């Protein structure tokens, strides 16, 4: 249900962009107004969401311990999986963010011959890592549309990405791997019944959206080519706050741009905010030093105490009358 809903939503978005440009000629709306609105909502949304999170205290010291804690000198300490110091935490976070360390521990459980068996399952880690790294590469590569002159580093990345020199214009591997990895992540949600059971529209929608963005980009580069110079003039116009709309840029460009705008708008309100959330995960970003330092719950407020001495002072006479022993006469 969620899957079909998401698929239809993305298809509808494509139809809206196509009709808006090819039928009713609203190039200005899809090429200028919506992209600007999307950028504004994305930046403001992400910042407000993180500020909102920052107002939540971490009541308990809850790092997940994934290795040997610092102990006696002759017991080997796992300094990144169970960090004791800030340096260890930085290493742990770097491994988590760049290499998805925790996903590397992913296991699957199966029943074989009537017995439960548990085994390593690296495919999700591999697919997730391939997806995120290539998405990042694609994003960086797109800076060629937002800088003039194009920085040499971007040209180098483009050359490395296309170093196999397959076809013209040369095939950029990151784009293909991005779509393939996203397709695998989608297949997981459809093909593995347990994962399908817990998948919601909010899981399918971003996948369909990103796959569509990737495919429209690939179509635009290799098949239904657009006038790339006009495209760059439009993108440069956007970022230099001098927007222009040029005729002769194919509808596919507007579809691509509209889907990206939708992704940016959707971003701060969805699970995609894990981009910011990974930095604010107390199970990862705290050091496991609770035996050395006391973690005080920031929620603690000064509690009014009424000690026994005060109690006795207050009720001494009544207690004596009732024959209850008192400590002070």
């Amino acid at each position, binding site marked *: 249900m969620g899957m079909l809903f998401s698929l239809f939503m993305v298809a509808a978005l494509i139809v809206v962009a196509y009709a808006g440009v090819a039928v009713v000629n609203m190039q200005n709306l899809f090429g200028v107004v919506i992209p600007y609105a999307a950028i504004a909502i994305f930046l403001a949304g992400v910042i407000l969401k993180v500020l909102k999170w920052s107002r939540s205290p971490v009541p308990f010291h809850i790092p997940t311990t994934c290795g040997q804690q610092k102990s006696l000198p002759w017991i080997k300490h796992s300094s990144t999986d169970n960090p004791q110091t800030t340096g260890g935490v930085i290493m742990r976070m770097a491994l988590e963010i760049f290499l998805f360390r925790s996903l590397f521990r992913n296991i699957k459980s199966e029943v074989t011959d009537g017995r439960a068996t548990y085994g390593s399952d690296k495919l999700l880690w591999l697919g997730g890592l391939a997806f995120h790294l290539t998405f990042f590469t694609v994003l960086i590569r797109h800076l060629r549309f*937002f800088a*003039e002159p194009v920085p040499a580093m971007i040209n180098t990345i483009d050359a490395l990405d296309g170093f196999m020199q397959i076809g013209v214009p040369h095939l950029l591997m990151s784009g293909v791997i991005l779509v393939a990895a996203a397709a695998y992540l989608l297949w997981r949600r459809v093909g593995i019944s347990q994962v399908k059971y817990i998948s919601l529209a909010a899981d399918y929608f971003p996948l369909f959206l990103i796959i569509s963005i990737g495919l429209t980009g690939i179509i635009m580069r290799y098949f239904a080519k657009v006038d790339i110079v006009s495209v760059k003039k439009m993108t440069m116009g956007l*970022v230099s706050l001098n927007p*222009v709309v040029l005729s002769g840029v194919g509808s596919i460009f507007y579809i691509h741009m509209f889907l990206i705008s939708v992704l940016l708008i959707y971003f701060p309100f969805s699970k995609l905010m894990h981009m910011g959330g990974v930095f604010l995960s107390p199970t990862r970003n705290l050091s496991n030093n609770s035996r050395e330092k006391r973690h005080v719950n920031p929620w603690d407020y000064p509690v009014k105490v009424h000690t026994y001495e005060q109690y006795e002072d207050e009720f001494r006479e009544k207690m004596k009358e009732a024959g209850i022993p008192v400590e002070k006469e």
Partner: protein
Amino acid sequence: MYNGGKIILGLIIFLALAAFPFYSNLGGSAKKAMPSLDTPVIQQLAVKECVKPGEYMKREHMKVLDQWRDEVVREGKREKILVGGREFEKSLQNGCMACHSNKEQFCAECHGYAGVKPYCWDCHLSGEGGQI
């Protein structure tokens, strides 16, 4: 706000990265790539016509070159192309660059603008008019 310093530092880094295209282009002039057709050979042409219409060449010239390369180098089909009574050699240096002898103002103009680095010149000579 808890851990305010670190969170605000993180947000500043996020903004610096995400808004990079905007502030790096502040006050920049919108340069326009205009491939020049002003070469001595093209000036003398009565009918300024390429092997395919300009709009097609703008998008698909790389396909044409790729196809020519395959036909000439791999299949030995070197017959010339006849367009509007003019013969074109299937060659980058002797065909295309016979007219478009201004590599810097013609090829490199858009390629540089769009950040495209074709590997034509890994092998081909880029001298004026295809001469060494």
